[in-house]
């Protein structure tokens, strides 16, 4: 019955590889998320909604997602430029710079948070400069934004880099011989080719920023309604031994993240249709 419905791939090894994939995914991802759902709904849906629908939780969620989107946008632009520079040009120290892009992955986030705080606090090297201009960075939303940009930086660069490498110079030359200006070539030829990868990087960077905790708490100031991020609120609920409350906020974040990533995927599908498969 079933075998008649399922189209079997001619490539052997489907059963084994699917089994391994499903087992890994279940143990590492699906079961923990299932537990989150179970805990979140354990107190009933009205309680779940009541927990999320308080001013403080709403403020934290809004702050987390707003700053994450801004950070991901900054990383999108900056990451594209960085990927372009690192692949297209050769200059002394390029390989070191290239390796440095991965540092935010490797560095413990707490170390990054403390280092950024030390730099941007009013008595730090950069913080002192901004202080003279009357701008506070550390312990404000600016500080959170800087930490989020830091942790999300590698994603766009690393997803776009291979695509930049793949673009043949001939494509640009063809565009030039057909009379396109440099700007036009970038806008109509290069960027559409890079867009799907860049959007993937954007989505990853966004997801990372939304969940970031370790580096942000050092630089955020953590004032309720002002600089309190949603992950911190989860930790606070946990320390109140309010597990369903913590799970409820976790679920809200999951739902919003899912919605945003879904949107990004839609944009990707749309852009693929427009410019063809890349």
């Amino acid at each position: 019955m079933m075998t008649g419905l399922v189209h079997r791939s001619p490539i052997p090894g489907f059963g084994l590889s699917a089994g391994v994939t499903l087992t890994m995914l279940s143990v590492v991802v699906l079961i923990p998320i299932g537990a989150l759902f179970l805990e979140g709904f354990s107190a009933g849906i009205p309680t779940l909604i009541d927990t999320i629908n308080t001013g403080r939780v709403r403020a934290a969620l809004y702050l987390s997602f707003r700053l994450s989107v801004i950070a991901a946008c900054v990383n999108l632009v900056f990451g594209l430029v960085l990927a372009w520079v690192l692949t297209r040009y050769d200059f002394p120290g390029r390989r070191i710079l290239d390796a440095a892009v991965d540092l935010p992955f490797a560095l413990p986030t707490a170390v990054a948070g403390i280092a950024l705080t030390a730099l941007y606090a009013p008595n730090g090297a950069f913080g002192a400069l901004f202080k003279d201009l009357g701008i506070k960075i550390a312990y404000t939303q600016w500080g959170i934004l800087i930490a989020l940009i830091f942790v999300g930086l590698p994603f766009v660069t690393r997803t776009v880099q291979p695509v930049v490498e793949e673009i043949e110079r001939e494509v640009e030359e063809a565009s030039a011989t057909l009379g396109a200006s440099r700007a036009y070539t970038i806008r109509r030829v290069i960027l559409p080719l890079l867009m799907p990868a860049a959007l993937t990087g954007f989505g990853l960077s966004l997801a990372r920023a939304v969940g970031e905790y370790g580096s942000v708490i050092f630089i955020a100031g953590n004032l309720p309604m002002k600089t309190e991020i949603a992950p911190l609120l989860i930790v606070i609920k946990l320390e109140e031994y309010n597990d369903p409350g913590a799970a409820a906020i976790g679920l809200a974040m999951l739902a919003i993240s899912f919605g945003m990533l879904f949107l990004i995927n839609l944009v990707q599908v749309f852009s693929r249709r427009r410019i063809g498969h890349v």
Partner: protein
Amino acid sequence: MFATLHVAGRILPWADDAADGRVTISTGLRSLTGWPVLRGLQTAALALAVGFAGLTAQPVQAQALLNVSYDPTRELYADIDKAFAAWWVAEGNPAPEIQASHGGSGAQARAVIEGLDAQVVTLALAADIDKIAAQGKLPADWQGKLPHNSSPYTSTIVFLVREGNPKGIKDWGDLVADGVEVITPNPKTSGGARWNYLGAWAWAEQNGQDPQEFVKSLYTHVPVLDKGARDATTTFTQREIGDVLLAWENEAYLAQKELGEDQYDIVVPSVSVLAEPPVALVEANLHSDDQRKLAEAYLSFLYTPEAQAIIFKQFYRGWDTSKADPADVARFPQLKLVDIAHFGGWSKVQADHFADGGIFDQIYVAQ
């Protein structure tokens, strides 16, 4: 790491095994020397196996002890553990292996509840140990098992201000003056911060102010809510944020000692809280009789004159002054102290003030 030789035409590659197992392939134009892939895979697999083996925890030694403590006691227990180990060996026992874990009191209690294998807990609040007891890991009447409510020392909350006290801070009431920035951690995540909050509450009660209004206006002067007491100290000293740090007495003295007496002054308010950080044995995590003996000896050691001398030296208010340096004892100012019973006990305080939607939450949400 990997290189490929394209072998074109009819030139045959020839391989030559070196003595160390490396293979050389040559096409005449280029040659490659390296380990065969299989050998590389074997090495990687072996390394992985070693890595996984390291994941499995070592079995707990009978003479090992984990003390899970709160944030500012790092220096205290570093000294106590050294003294205890020496004493324990002198008593004819094998050398104990004592480990300490420090963090916010609430987070530490939670870790123990979720399975951190602590034999001894030394936390900031009785409420946090009560939470562990509620899970059945130790008897509910744990606080009666050791002298002085199971608290080997008490402490209080004082103010640490910058040298010369430029903002003229003398008492709790001065904290809400215009332009004063107060550093205190988040009471939700820090035990010490709850004492800070209660100290402010007690002062307002005794000075005819509405405590809730006073505490509320106090927290509008707080620019940063750190997670734990030590983080708040760092914010105040290293980042130079704020005019006054509400701190554990020991933390304030320690900051002064470590960072220079010419940088900070300690201000003692007219009234403060009597904090009794308790200690307890986690019965469920005692794995053998030997370990029980060690853990019990460790806790009773805290009450010996030797340990009490260390406690005084580390700026905590101990009970037994017989072996303490008189200078260590004399430096504590006498002030009016209010204990937790005044507020109705921890379970009431926790529910009224710090629970979800409690008074502390209302302070912020109402703004």
